[in-house]
């Protein structure tokens, strides 16, 4: 059991070490001649208009919240789906009710207009 997770460590290790090594190598190989114009953030080729703060639209939070809800439900659903065959009709009924609540939530969101982008 423990062995089956061991490769994860290796992979994560590789996935961190190799890119870092590549980037370090590229900073050695590549030139480094920054100047004020070059290091300016790009805004269509002219001097950027300074933005005092970077705010997201509320819509993105709505998406994030809906995602959070559904993803948590899915996390609940997966273990049940794995054991579905052995749970029998009780599990079936319970999860149908759970799904129904989820669908109601979606319908509520829909009716409230949370899914509209404009």
């Amino acid at each position, binding site marked *: 059991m423990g062995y089956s997770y061991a*490769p994860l460590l290796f992979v994560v290790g590789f996935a961190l070490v190799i890119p870092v090594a590549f980037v370090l190598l590229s900073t050695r190989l590549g030139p480094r001649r920054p100047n004020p114009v070059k290091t300016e953030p790009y805004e269509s080729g002219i001097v950027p208009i300074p933005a005092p703060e970077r705010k997201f639209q509320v819509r993105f939070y709505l*998406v994030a919240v809906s995602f959070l809800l559904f993803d948590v439900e899915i996390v609940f659903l997966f273990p049940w789906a794995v054991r579905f065959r052995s749970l029998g009709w009780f599990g079936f009924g319970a999860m149908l009710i759970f799904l129904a609540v989820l669908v109601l939530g979606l319908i509520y969101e829909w009716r409230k207009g949370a899914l509209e982008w*404009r």
Partner: protein
Amino acid sequence: MNIMHYLADLLVRSLFKADPATWPYTWIAYAVVIGVGALLAFAFVAIFAGPVTWIERRIAGRIQSRIGPNRNGPQGCLQWLADGIKCWLKEDLVPATADKPLYLAAPYLVFTGMFGAFVVLPFGAHVIAADLNVGLLYILAVTSLVVVGLLMAGWGSNSKWALFGGVRSAAQLVSYEVPSAFSLMAVVLMAGTLSTQGIVGAQGGWPWQWFVFRNPFLFAAFIMYFISAIAEGNRTPFDLPEAESEIIAGYNIEYSGMRFLFFLFAEWANMWIMAAVATLAFLGGWQIPGISPERIAEAKGWTFVGWQALSFAIFVFKGTCLVFTIIQIRWTLPRLRVDQLMITCWKYLVPLSMGSATGVLLLMALVREGGIVDWVMRGAMLLVGLLVAGAYIRKVRATFMADRDNYKKMEGRDLWYPPYRLP
């Protein structure tokens, strides 16, 4: 048994003449073998993500009646290497106003998220780095790191266009994760396990044993998973986070050189991951028609290696077919708009994928597996699938032949680049 363990045991037995079960240093052998395995998986990513960029560009050239990269190496096949080296030699620019820690760390996070998923992909009967019992969930979880990475890139760049790209990609990726998870849930219901090898094992080598043709709901789930996968991979028609004509490449606009390359690298690797997950979940994975997994496990010596190689080839072939389909879709369709993208997800895919999971549930409860109804369903779905695939192949072939004839007529003519006259 995992091929890693098998090889490690073999190593211990043959090299040190010890019994792996009792030898105290077995774990070192395991570590070495697993390390090599992880390195091989990494090499696969690199080898796949590199040349597939060239292949995609050649295919795009063919689709668009032009040539594509053909200068570096025979038929331009070293183009990806040249591009990689070029990125290595580029200046690593950091915008002065950037949020440095976020900006610098974002490519690593994206890369780690992509690469982590390779651990649990079952490339062959025993060719898998780690057969986790939560494999599918693990893929969903670890690829979510990409969202964080893209958001960090968008935010950390402190450029307005990059912020747009980052926010767009975050909204898009998290939204499409819901339908893709529901579609995969239908598969989990059928297989009764989250382990990737277990899901492949629950299917068979013949198409009627694949999950995609088991019943109509799974067929629908496959299509929805495929659409969501394209969206999660930021591919056209869902490439809004990097729409160059709208937000000028989005989150990676301030990146250059190697860091920029990691984003592209992750994008192409992601394409493969999505295709591989679709293959293992719906298309029977590495299963060899007519050969049961037990027979492979019992095989010894070269037969064992042969079966592994064949299963590997089958898996890669299926995955590559899907990758080509994704490429072809990319060069066919225009891009969606951001509101249409969200509506497609939340108003169509989410309810429909929930419906398909519920449908699978009902069919499982009502239809006995192996019964008449089950077989009729499988046959009908297989027919539908074959018709779709047949029509697709016929259409592609007709276009290809017409094109080839046109190119033939040009042979021997003095052409300038690109061929401008198709007689």
